[in-house]
């Protein structure tokens, strides 16, 4: 989920480097994501990640590499009159494109997403608690984030997909919230649903973040009603 905030806590002139691991486990699938991220000057962020998508009971993961860059273009998370605005690109390399090809994806090797994100924290906005929201608009062709290729027989072009999150900070290190992510539905072979989740995020210090979520991913590759637990751990070393 792209937000307009940069990874880590790097302020002006500072650098933050970190690594993250995410696992999502639903009825018929499991997704693992491993990645590294580097941000500088509270201005730019680059990251590299590898996704491994497992179809339970079937040997061989579908792997995808994602290289991302993001730049903060205007505004501020907390101060001033404008929300923080960032724009970014994600280059996706599908390493195992056989299934994407078989299900009729327009491209089964590589794709690119572009997005613009708006994020704002409102101090003391709900009964004294801080309110955080994010709105992103993503231009994408990806089928199931790219794991089933890019574009399809029903739509081969870019579409603009909104993604929205809202969270309340219960104290300095704990947030609860929800997220909704609209997705394309490009393939006639499989229908694709929007993603949504409710999450709790824990920031015991500036080095560690643990997020747990219950995610409803809808229909994936013909398997209906996929939902389950999402867990993500990030660690930052300056």
């Amino acid at each position, binding site marked *: 989920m792209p937000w307009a905030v940069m990874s880590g806590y790097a*302020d*002006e*002139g*500072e650098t933050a480097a970190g690594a993250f691991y995410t696992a999502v486990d639903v009825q018929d699938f499991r997704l693992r994501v491993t990645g590294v991220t580097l941000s500088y000057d*509270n201005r730019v962020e680059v990251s590299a990640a590898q996704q491994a998508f497992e179809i339970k009971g079937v040997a061989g993961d579908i792997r995808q590499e994602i290289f991302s860059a993001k730049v903060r273009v205007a505004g501020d998370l*907390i*101060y*001033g009159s404008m929300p923080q605005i960032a724009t970014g690109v994600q280059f996706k390399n599908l390493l195992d494109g056989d299934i994407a090809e078989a299900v009729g994806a327009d491209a089964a090797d590589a794709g690119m997403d572009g997005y613009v994100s708006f994020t704002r924290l409102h*101090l*003391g906005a709900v*009964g*004294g*608690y*801080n309110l955080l929201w994010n709105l992103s608009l993503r231009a994408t062709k990806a089928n199931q984030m790219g794991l089933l290729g890019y574009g399809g027989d029903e739509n081969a072009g870019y579409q603009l997909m909104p993604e929205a999150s809202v969270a309340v900070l*219960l*104290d*300095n290190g704990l947030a609860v919230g929800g997220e909704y992510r609209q997705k394309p539905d490009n393939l006639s072979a499989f229908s694709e649903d929007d993603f949504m989740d409710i999450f709790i995020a824990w920031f015991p210090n500036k080095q560690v973040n643990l997020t747990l979520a219950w995610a409803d991913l809808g229909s994936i590759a013909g398997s209906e009603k996929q939902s389950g637990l999402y867990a993500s751990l990030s660690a930052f070393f300056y």
Partner: protein
Amino acid sequence: MLRKALLFISLISWSVHAHCGSLYEDLGGREGIATVVDNFITEISFDPSIYPFFSKTNVPRLREKLEEQFCMLSGGPCEYTGDTMEKVHTGMHISSAEFNRTVELLQSAMDDAGVPFTTQNRLIRLLAPLREEIIRR
């Protein structure tokens, strides 16, 4: 129907107001604010990146002006008699990182004074607009 709706809305906003109380009271009045400011000055004096700004500062004056400012901003019966934020902080070249660090020190000062998180947020919200008059000058 419209009258009922309006009554309902005013009841809600009344109960929200009644629930919050004045920030000045929630901070513990003059005494509570004095404790917060004391803790804040202690936090500053132990912070290696922020203390150098204050090495030549007249601390009794700073304490008095901060107390007045927090009291006035939170709706208490005080008047701020110090200099403008712009005048005080010009020439210091305070970075946004140093500003954020100082806000963290204020948060720990309030933690130590037993000020609840929601009350802390409400005070910081009132200080946030002053940032533009304080940093990069």
